[in-house]
């Protein structure tokens, strides 16, 4: 096990900057998820830690040892690649055994057999040890790649989108299996993904990365309930968060948020007021709990019409056209709406996340310290 410290890592490929001054600390034994859209620099960062790529500037430390000039094979790092990178000419057994047969980690054949069978049992691959990678399904190949990385108890365990190529159902099952395996894993792990469900489920902490910059590092509840940027807020949640622009006005000593929808205005919650400062233009980040709907007109509600209704089995996604803005939220499955039906939309201020409209940075939200709903 090792604590990984990255200091001011910068990397460019030709003219393109892949990583900009990235500093990150992964605690000993922690499971950290690197999360971001495609092309954000996640894999590059992982390659730096593994030693496959070298940073242009900046330092990498494992505990107190500088790693910049250490060969990949001497870093005691195991990695699962996005495309699995199995050895096609070898059966599964030899694939898994290969790290233990290298000069670095040489083990006698009896020891190898014991270890291979141990990891194969964890991942349920015991019956497939004689097969070749070409005879396996993608899910099984992925498990072989996992076994090969696990077989030698590495210091650091790196996973690069290991389940991204599986179909939805298998991905769901594998995610839970990984989560169950996590507790038996005593090494520092970094997991790269672009799927927010994986990130929230697996990560002790999540580092959100965009265009080579780390935007926020925090637990799943922190990034969900207290996203540091609008961009982070947009990434989390099945139904994308709605950003409703609003003005902040002072009335009778209280601050009011006034949206451009007529009649939709409310006094800002007291604990939010303090953090708003003198920002005049805000974006109201509204997920489903922050939105209320009604079939009848009501005070503080604005009229909209149903743009689209998408039943999703156990819930329904409703898209409402409010004066040209499309608002998305989830309604219970037993609430039926027809397309073009009139619906009135209101806001629940205590669930709204306030962002600065100009900088798109987080300002405040109600009940900030816990993050859970009140």
């Amino acid at each position, binding site marked *: 096990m090792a604590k990984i410290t990255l200091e001011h890592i910068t990397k460019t490929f030709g003219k393109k900057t892949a990583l900009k001054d990235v500093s990150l600390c992964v605690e000993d034994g922690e499971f950290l998820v690197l999360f971001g859209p495609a092309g954000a620099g996640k894999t590059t960062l992982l390659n730096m830690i593994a030693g496959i790529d070298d940073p242009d500037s900046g330092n990498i430390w494992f505990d107190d040892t500088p790693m910049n000039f250490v060969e990949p094979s001497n870093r005691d790092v195991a990695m699962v690649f996005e495309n699995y990178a199995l050895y096609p000419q070898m059966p599964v057994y030899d694939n898994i055994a290969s790290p233990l047969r290298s000069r670095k980690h040489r083990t006698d054949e009896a020891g190898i057999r014991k270890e291979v069978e141990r990891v194969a049992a964890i991942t349920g691959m015991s019956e497939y040890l004689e097969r070749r990678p070409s005879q396996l399904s993608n899910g099984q190949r992925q498990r072989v790649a996992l076994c090969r990385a696990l077989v030698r108890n590495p210091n650091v365990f790196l996973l690069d989108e290991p389940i991204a190529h599986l179909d939805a159902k298998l991905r769901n*099952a594998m995610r839970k299996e990984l989560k169950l395996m996590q*507790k038996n894993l005593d090494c520092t792990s970094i997991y790269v993904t672009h799927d927010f*469900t994986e990130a*929230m*489920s697996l990560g002790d902490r999540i580092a959100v990365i965009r265009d080579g910059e780390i935007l926020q590092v925090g637990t799943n509840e922190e990034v969900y309930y207290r996203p540091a940027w609008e961009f982070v807020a947009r990434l*989390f949640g099945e139904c994308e968060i709605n950003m409703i622009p609003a003005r902040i006005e002072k009335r009778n000593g209280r601050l009011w948020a006034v949206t451009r929808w007529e009649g939709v205005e409310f006094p800002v919650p007291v604990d939010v007021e303090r953090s708003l400062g003198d920002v005049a233009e805000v974006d109201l980040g509204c997920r489903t709990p922050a939105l209320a709907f009604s079939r009848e007109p009501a005070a503080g509600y604005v009229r909209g019409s149903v743009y689209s209704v*998408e039943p999703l*089995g156990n819930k329904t996604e409703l898209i409402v056209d409010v004066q040209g803005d499309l608002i998305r939220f989830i309604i219970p499955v037993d609430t039926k709406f027809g397309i073009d039906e009139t619906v009135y939309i209101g806001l629940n201020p205590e669930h709204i996340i306030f962002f600065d409209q100009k900088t798109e940075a987080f300002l405040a939200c109600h009940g900030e310290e816990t993050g859970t709903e009140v």
Partner: protein
Amino acid sequence: MAENLVLKNLYKKYDTNGKKKQAKEQPWAVHDLNLEMEQGTFVSILGPSGCGKSTTLRMIAGLESITQGSIFMGEQDISSLHPKDRNIGLAFEDYALYPPLTVYENIAFCLRAKKVPGEEIDRRVREIAKTMKVEELLDSKVSGLSGGQKQRVNIARALVRHPKVLLLDEPLSHLDGKMRQILRGEIKRLHHEIKCTTILVTHDQMEAISLADYIAVMKLGVLQQYGTPDEIYNDPANAFVAGFIGDPPMNLLRVKVVEDASYTYAFELGDGSLLRVPEKFYRVIHTGDVFDLGIRPTSITIVEGEEYDARFKVDLFEFLGEERSVGIQINESLLNIVYNDNRRFAEGDIIHIRVNPDLLFLFEPESGERVRPR
């Protein structure tokens, strides 16, 4: 008169280049398919790869010969008509746009082939471009468009000749998550506006449920169930349909009926834990019977207090935003429970659950046929 699209005893077997031996073993790509699609409805043909859904679509379009059976449009048998005379618009998954032409010319292409007068073409292209929100793109080349834009143009091209039936072959499968969600809403909206009979072929159950009025679930060329999304979701005909529909997927567990001191009947799960049998099943089960039990993760509630159906030890807790999930390991499989309040559980906690008896399904273990209460 309504022009319903009717598939009557449709069979398809692919050619084997005259090799007799293979022809006998060659499975039916489509086997005895009967479907009636009302004019103006949105029907989805859903199934895993190789289930015959695309073959069916291609037979309707006339791109594939019919081995046996016929297709009717209203009263007219269209089985032997040339594709161009069937008045069917088809949008392929991989766009199949003509790269050297502009968007405008791509959309106008089939009208020019039909020698429609120039003014008429112009009017219709602009009209459909407006519906599909590609007006600004009309003069640009196809190669520069994003995936979502290409698919819009693709659908516009299929719609411009005012087809009686619009066929969509996996229209969203090449798009990334966000774009897919947006275009899904657009397609739903589009169907509401043009009211053209639409058939969507997809392997993504979420797409089918959210878009279609009726869903036909297929497996290995055989129709499994045809019904509204609600019926398919809440009243599956067999274990295949039950397991295929729903995200997160339905829990399917092998159970044995035992007699229990307090409950009279109970299901014994693989690890020996017991689940109370809803009374409605008493008349169809006997002690010692083996079933596959299906419960959706959302049909299970975690309760406090005396009245419960089963008690388990928590193995897995996931925070997934608005939803949270608890996993319970039962031998090799995982019983998954999804809820959306803000309770938290830790590994090792004891929980009591109640199952919604209306949404608990039993299936025959061998055939997968549904066992219904009498």
